[in-house]
């Protein structure tokens, strides 16, 4: 699969140990979380849409929510031989509208709430975060080349820039 591209659509989880390029296109308030086990060489990415699943509604796609998506991705990676203790991650997205006028934004801050919820999951699961590009008012595209480990982020108006390398080199 080396050199191939895996699009990670909204609420999707993709995992692989064959070195594809993971791509999260058009992240607005959603969060893209890239994960990698450098020993087992297992990689994954989840495109989280909302902070938390609803208590009264079955979860159709675990990747949709931060509180179900991050652990579901780790489980899928574990099935390919990854070990949670070795997994490192990087995250991007969580943009929000520039301002909320005179009113109180409250629950409307989806971007910030998503970023906080994903960070909370990363902390609870004991993962090490090597790179983070969240907030602001710009849409982002996030790529993770699991062959080289390189995570890059670009906005519509800015050049692509390296966020970090999940292989640690």
């Amino acid at each position, binding site marked *: 699969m080396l050199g191939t591209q895996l699009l990670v659509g909204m609420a999707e989880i993709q995992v692989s140990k064959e070195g594809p390029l993971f791509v999260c296109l*058009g992240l607005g308030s*959603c969060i893209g979380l890239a994960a990698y086990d450098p020993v087992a060489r297992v990689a994954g990415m989840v495109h989280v849409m909302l902070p938390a699943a609803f208590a009264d509604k079955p979860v159709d796609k675990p990747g949709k929510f931060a509180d179900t998506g991050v652990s579901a991705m780790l489980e899928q990676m574990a099935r390919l031989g990854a070990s949670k203790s070795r997994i490192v991650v990087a995250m991007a997205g969580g943009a929000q*509208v*520039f301002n909320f*006028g005179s009113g109180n934004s409250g*629950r*409307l801050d989806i971007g910030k709430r998503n970023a906080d919820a994903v960070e909370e999951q990363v902390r609870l699961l004991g993962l090490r975060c090597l790179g983070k590009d969240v907030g602001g*008012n710009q*849409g982002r595209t996030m790529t993770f080349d699991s062959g080289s480990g390189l995570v890059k982020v670009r906005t519509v*108006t800015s050049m692509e820039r390296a966020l970090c390398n999940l292989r640690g080199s």
Partner: protein
Amino acid sequence: MAGTLTLEDIVRKTTDLPSIPSAALAVIREADKPDASAQKVAEYIRQDQSLTARVLRLANSAYFGLARRILDAREAVVVLGLRSVRNLAMVASTYPWMIRPLKGYNLGPKQMWCHSFGTAVGAQLIARETGKADPDAAFTAGLLHNIGKVALSIWLENKLPAMMAMAVRDDLTFDEVERKILGFDHAEVGAYLAEEWNLPEPLVLAIRFHHHPDECQPHEPIVDCVHFGDYLTMSMGFGLGGDGLRYEFSTHALERLSVDPEATDRIVCDFVASYEAYEKLFQDLDQAA
């Protein structure tokens, strides 16, 4: 450029203005009447062969999942209903030019469409759920809310980085920067075009005030529906351009719609599900564009 060109100059000098076939405009105006006639709507569609072909292709798409093929406009109106056909006529009329890239806003192919259609679906959902506005009129208003960008794009080419820098430096929204540089913004240009097309007033208001619904006096629920639909679409990253999410959101619009902010996440889920269901509508449309 500031102060050198009026809004009217811009519209007059733009060679690639968006257009809607007169038959489709007649459909909107007819469908907007309290005593709208299904027969008249079908007749207006039939006047335009290309529009008829696209409407029939949409009517026969997987989205509606009909057991048999619809063969003419009259049958489409009978089977799908007048309001659905009005929306199909709008989709069929706008899709060919909304899928073009808009360099001035850094929107690639289909991104303007993706954002406009998302706002249409969002505004329709909010109108239906709240019961505050006609869901089909809200759909049309959402679809057309950014038409001003199509006209302004060419005038903003290569200016976007400087405009965003100004927005950051002066702590402005993108439409405020447009007004500072041009003297008017894309919402005003869009409303001007909508008036030229003689669209019903609520649609013109929704286009003009979609970023500032509180300024619409008296308040129009359809304006609030489009404002919220636009917010949902931007938040989900559908068709974001260089202006990104650099706009203001009015929480007063939510209060007027009686939408509980606590329900935002559920609305987002319903919105994305609705949008994804609608995608079946377009499986064949590229061939018809």
